């Protein structure tokens, strides 16, 4: 849309609404709790709202219902043992979390993984992005009243899960990476099946997006709703599609390439107004770009080793070697009992995950266990802007805003 729109600041809108009402209509404010079990709060988020009629005058997100103490747990186990816990951060894109965590530890150990391993990781991370955005889009559309989009989206996600299962042995909690590699190489013919998936996925994606992009109801519910200005998005630390929806072209895959992202061509879509509709458009385009990356990875899929062969004290060798060679057996025993040996130091690595930038800050005193591990979760930061943008909105707009922020509580609460 080329037309310039100006949207009033939501706080000013609320103040204006309160003043505009004649004295006889000004009533007592009502407090309303939305969640922690509410279909549109996507998990266990609770919104403590204060309402003037149907207009929000205050919203306070209450988080922590899913707090499991992952950071405490990480301080008490070896680096490899923590991989399954990363699955359960953003449980809609476990492969991307696995990769971010593994690269963080590898940076600390100054370990380079071979090209084939990097390509596998990029491929799985982009597939995870597709499945995460599919779910996010389906749930968003469902929240604003488009039931069929969710069904289409889940069908596509299911196809991706079949591929994940073939690769990792699990549909959902994949635990696929290890420090210094991945659990196993790609199966025979799997890349071809991923390619075939992409072929049939693109037309279906267009079909799904066509259901929403010029849909009158969808546009009424999202255009101009939940506007996040560029300055607000930055000061609140928003990342991922939510930041790009507000017009900031920050994508770490481009700006700070990791795992070989610099070898692939793709565009970074940005929004212009930062409303719910822009965030939806950004996610839609990101899926097309992900397919583009997947195709490039498959086209130039490198051969060679799929794990770091020179990391004897970090990566346990494949099972067939362990069972047939004494040296490898000892190596495996040491890694399992003591954990991968990581030098002392501190490192902060962040990856561009589907929900935003997932960061791991690791402080090591040497040995197989981190001294401190901090998870910078994108959903946590993305949710912190709700008190700012939802003031002055209708309750029904809050549903659109929550859907468009696409958060996941497993990651927010850690």
């Amino acid at each position, binding site marked *: 849309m080329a037309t310039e729109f100006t949207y009033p600041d939501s706080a000013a809108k609320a103040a204006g609404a309160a003043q505009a009402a004649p004295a006889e209509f000004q009533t007592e404010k009502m407090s309303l709790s939305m969640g922690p079990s509410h279909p549109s709060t996507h998990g266990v988020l609770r919104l403590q709202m204060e309402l003037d009629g149907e207009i929000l005058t205050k919203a306070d997100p209450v*988080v*922590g219902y899913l*707090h499991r*103490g992952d*950071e*405490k*747990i990480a*301080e*008490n*186990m*070896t680096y490899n*043992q923590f991989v399954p816990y990363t699955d359960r951060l953003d449980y809609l894109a476990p492969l991307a979390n696995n990769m971010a965590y593994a690269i963080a530890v590898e*940076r*600390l150990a*100054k370990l380079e993984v071979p090209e084939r391993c990097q390509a596998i990781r990029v491929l799985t991370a982009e597939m995870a992005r597709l499945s995460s955005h599919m779910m996010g889009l389906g749930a968003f559309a469902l929240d604003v009243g488009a039931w069929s989009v969710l069904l289409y989206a889940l069908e596509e996600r299911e196809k991706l899960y079949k591929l994940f299962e073939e690769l990792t042995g699990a549909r959902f909690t994949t635990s696929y990476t290890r420090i210094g590699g991945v659990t196993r190489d790609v199966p025979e013919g799997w890349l071809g099946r991923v390619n075939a998936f992409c072929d049939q996925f693109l037309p279906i994606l267009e079909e799904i997006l066509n259901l929403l992009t010029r849909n009158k109801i969808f546009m009424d519910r999202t255009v101009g709703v939940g506007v996040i200005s560029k300055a*607000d998005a*930055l*000061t*609140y*630390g*928003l990342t991922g599609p939510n930041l790009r929806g507000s017009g*900031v072209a*920050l994508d*770490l895959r*481009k*700006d*700070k390439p990791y795992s070989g992202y610099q070898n692939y061509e793709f565009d970074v879509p940005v929004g212009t107004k930062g409303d719910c509709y822009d965030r939806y458009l950004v996610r839609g385009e990101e899926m097309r770009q992900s397919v583009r990356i997947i195709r490039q990875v498959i086209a130039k899929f490198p051969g060679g080793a799929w794990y770091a062969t020179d990391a004897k004290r970090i990566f346990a060798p494949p099972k067939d070697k362990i069972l047939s060679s004494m040296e490898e057996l000892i190596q495996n025993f040491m890694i*399992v*009992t*003591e*954990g991968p040996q990581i*030098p002392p*130091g*501190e*490192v*902060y*690595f*962040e990856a561009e995950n589907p929900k935003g*930038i997932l*960061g791991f*800050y690791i*402080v*090591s*005193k*040497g*040995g*197989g*266990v*981190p*001294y*401190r591990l*901090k998870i*910078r979760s994108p959903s*946590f*930061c993305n*949710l*912190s*802007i709700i008190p*700012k943008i939802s003031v002055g909105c209708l309750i029904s707009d809050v549903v659109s805003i929550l859907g468009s922020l696409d958060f996941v509580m497993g990651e927010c*609460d850690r």
Partner: protein
Amino acid sequence: MSVEVLTALKAKFPQVSDRPSADHPAVDVPRADLVEVLRYLRDEHAFDLLMDLTAIDWAQCASPRFTMVYHLLSTTRAGSYMRVAVACAGSEIEPTSPSVVHLWAGANWHERECFDMFGIKFEGHPDLRRILMWDGYPYHPLRKEFPLAGIETVLPVADIAEETGAKVIAAPMAGGPFVAISGEINLTEAEPRAKDESWSDRAARPDQTALRQVKE
């Protein structure tokens, strides 16, 4: 590019010293200069995103016990990153640190989390409440002396606690998780074993039947 920022920063604030880091540039900053250094980095060097802030607990009796770490990222100068660390003031029980909410609004939740997990009081924070644990929870779980299994506390909802007699009990951890110890290799020390913190030689095994008893 990061080197330029470091030189400029050190020219402006001579008190700033390098901090060992495995990847990005990192600096140690005296507490009094923290807010000014962060403001300078944000305004003069375009570090417009505060990615994260967190604390490290260097164990009981360490001095300083808590170190605050700020991660800054620039959106305009692709890939610029800076880590700023500062020691906390105050006692071991009540450490303090200046708040940076006035620089980045997003610091609000991060500081609340830090207060919740470590008990660090942020001076000048507008609304310092717990965020992940419930209001009224008596401990700060990420401090090193807090056991992995947790500590028995009362249920946050008083009327349900009274009705059912239920409590928040320590996790029964017999058999797991298997853990090794951080630090240098020492096979006898680092052998995997069940870290059984809920009951051990020092703390007697709690009476499970009594804990699980719920009034019919």
